[in-house]
């Protein structure tokens, strides 16, 4: 484990240090005093493990492919932007556009997340990205979603609070979302269908959530005790009939 004191350090220098040590065989890093540096973990080939103390800036692990990051704190916008593989665990809340266009890997958020989470997520062959949000989520959850899985648990949501914002699944044409609890239909975009979960869905959820729960110190059975609503797109070609041909 290599400890790097990151306070006041430019992101370029920080990533260069990680890259240099990783090439010298160090696999685990503790970044202390992180305060808003963007792009942490971008452009680092291989699969180092970073533990971040503080708040990393926007585009954490953007374009990454196999990095593993645990954040003891909150994250800002566009975590895992266009990420291909890897795992990001946020022991706090996250900003907007988490997992934008991600094609593989996992992002776990302990608390709430901002707007447009999972926007244009994709999947390809055995690469199926998963985002799990422990708290609530903002507007446009799963917008333009083309693949992958979003699981919203709403664990700390108070009775008078909304589990998710409006326009959930706008433009969705692939993938699936599982929301723990019921969702008023006014929250959903016209492209989205609801269903109750099947045995297969529950097995899949259990599989995903057992890892999440053990990391976040949660009781899997308690989490699974409440029924989930499944959201999926009406149509895989929402724009197929737009043209005069």
């Amino acid at each position: 484990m290599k400890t790097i004191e990151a306070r006041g350090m430019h992101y370029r220098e920080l990533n260069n240090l990680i890259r240099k040590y990783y090439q010298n065989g160090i696999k685990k890093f503790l970044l202390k005093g992180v305060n808003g540096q963007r792009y942490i973990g971008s452009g680092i080939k291989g699969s180092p493990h970073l533990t971040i103390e503080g708040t990393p800036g926007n585009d954490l692990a953007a374009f990454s492919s196999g990095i593993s990051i645990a954040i003891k704190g909150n994250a800002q916008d566009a975590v895992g932007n266009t990420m291909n593989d890897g795992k990001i665990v946020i022991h706090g809340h996250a900003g907007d556009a988490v997992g934008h266009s991600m094609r593989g890997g996992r992002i776990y958020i302990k608390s709430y997340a901002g707007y447009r989470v999972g926007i244009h997520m994709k999947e390809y062959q055995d690469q199926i990205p998963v985002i799990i949000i422990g708290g609530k989520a903002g507007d446009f959850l799963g917008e333009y979603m083309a693949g992958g899985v979003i699981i919203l648990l709403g664990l700390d949501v108070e009775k008078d609070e909304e589990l998710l914002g409006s326009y959930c699944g706008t433009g969705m044409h692939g993938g699936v979302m599982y929301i723990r609890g019921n969702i008023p239909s006014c929250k959903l975009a016209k492209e989205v269908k609801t269903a109750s979960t099947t045995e297969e869905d529950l097995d899949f959820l259990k599989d995903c959530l057992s890892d999440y729960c053990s990391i976040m110190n949660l009781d899997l059975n308690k989490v699974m005790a409440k029924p989930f609503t499944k959201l999926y797109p009406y149509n895989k070609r929402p724009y197929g009939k737009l043209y005069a041909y």
Partner: protein
Amino acid sequence: MNLNYTTPEFIILRDLQKCNNCGLCVKNCSFEAHYYSKHQRVESNSAKCVNCHYCVATCPKKALAIKKHPLEFRHNSYWTESAIKDIYKQASTGGILLTGMGTDREYPIYWDKILLNASQVTNPSIDPLREPMELRTFLGTKPGKLELDKTNNLSELMPPQLELQIPVVFAGMSFGSISYNAFKALAIAAHKAGIYFNTGEGGLHKDFYEFASHAIVQVASGRFGVNQEYLENSAAVEIKIGQGAKPGIGGHLPGKKVGEEVSKTRMIPLGSDAISPAPHHDIYSIEDLRQLIFAIKEATEYKKPVLVKIAAVHNVAAIASGIVRAGADIIVIDGFRAGTGAAPTRIRDNVGIPIELAIASVDERLKEEGIRKHVSIIASGGIRNSSDVVKAIALGADAVAIATAALIAMGCHMCQKCYTGKCNWGITTQDPELTKRLDPDKASQRLLNLLRAWSLEIKEMLGGMGINAIESLKGNRLMLRGVGLNETELKILGISHAGQ
């Protein structure tokens, strides 16, 4: 009776004395304009003809010709034939009209209203056949000044540059919109000519990694095929904000074009629609653009220039200024005549501005603000020949990008039906029967021939002006004069009228 309001655009003429009924045209036409009658005679259905000339070119007896259909509507200079036919089409389908290639409308062509200078008496012209003539162009941010350290080496690292042997690159065309063989031909030609091809938003097929040193890879709103490996297998990375043929809108590659190879390259499931949203979901401002530019620079360790491509629109100069300040190394400005594999007709024909005016105003604005050196400019959107290239550079571009001209070099006949995926010339199709008609080696040779011919012509024109390096032509508007342009146009172009 179900009356069809649509009348044929073209008429197929078959010389029955020459036609030996061999049926090659029946076999070849992907639009099924030729067929066997009940009596096994080859006949034609003009209504299906798109006038791509493939049957004409391949007919062994040269028995075929195609003409504009003589049927005319009553003359009306307002309600033209296309205006009427578009309404028929929309009234029967209820859909958005689609088209391919650049706009065919009669907007002013400023290239043709600009004339070049040549030396006479007072300064000598240069003969490029005998004297060295430099067309090499470097694209990228240039340092403000050169500082040497004590050992007389540059004390600051030169920002990454793209080296072009001739100031032309191939514009973004995705594998998906064009065929595997067409894509391969562009890659081979770029590699051999010392220029660059551009992946468009279709990813880079692993077969083409060998050409990575001449690839500009695109990161567009759909992020198709974008990962670490893709960014690494490139010479430069282009953020595509917009394209000249359809500024402000996204694109949909229909699932039927997403076959096995396209699926692998875009990294999306077989047969699924590839939807490119209109905006990037992480760019809502110049600051956000800066964030993505530096995300890419960080991901590629600052070793590659980052291009930002925009469509030429109303406030293009101010937008370009913002892009420079956002940290782009190269700006690509795509004029309203730019081609496309598919665009809504109304967008293609009505949105954007001419590239000539855009280049002049961007160059002028960046010079005024003292930031022109921070960026290189690539002009694209309807560059037809070497004199268009020379005029674009004299108006302020560093280089141009060509796509339509490159496709024509490979055999495109401009029938504008790319969006159907039935291209008989094997260029804009994924049908294996059609794609094999294009031989990538022969097509790349034709591209190389075109580039060679243009570079010879550019050298002749430069020599005539008494200039021996393309660098000295850049933004050199004294070499240009306008004909038949009004004062506003001349002012925007920054040129004098012929005779002045």
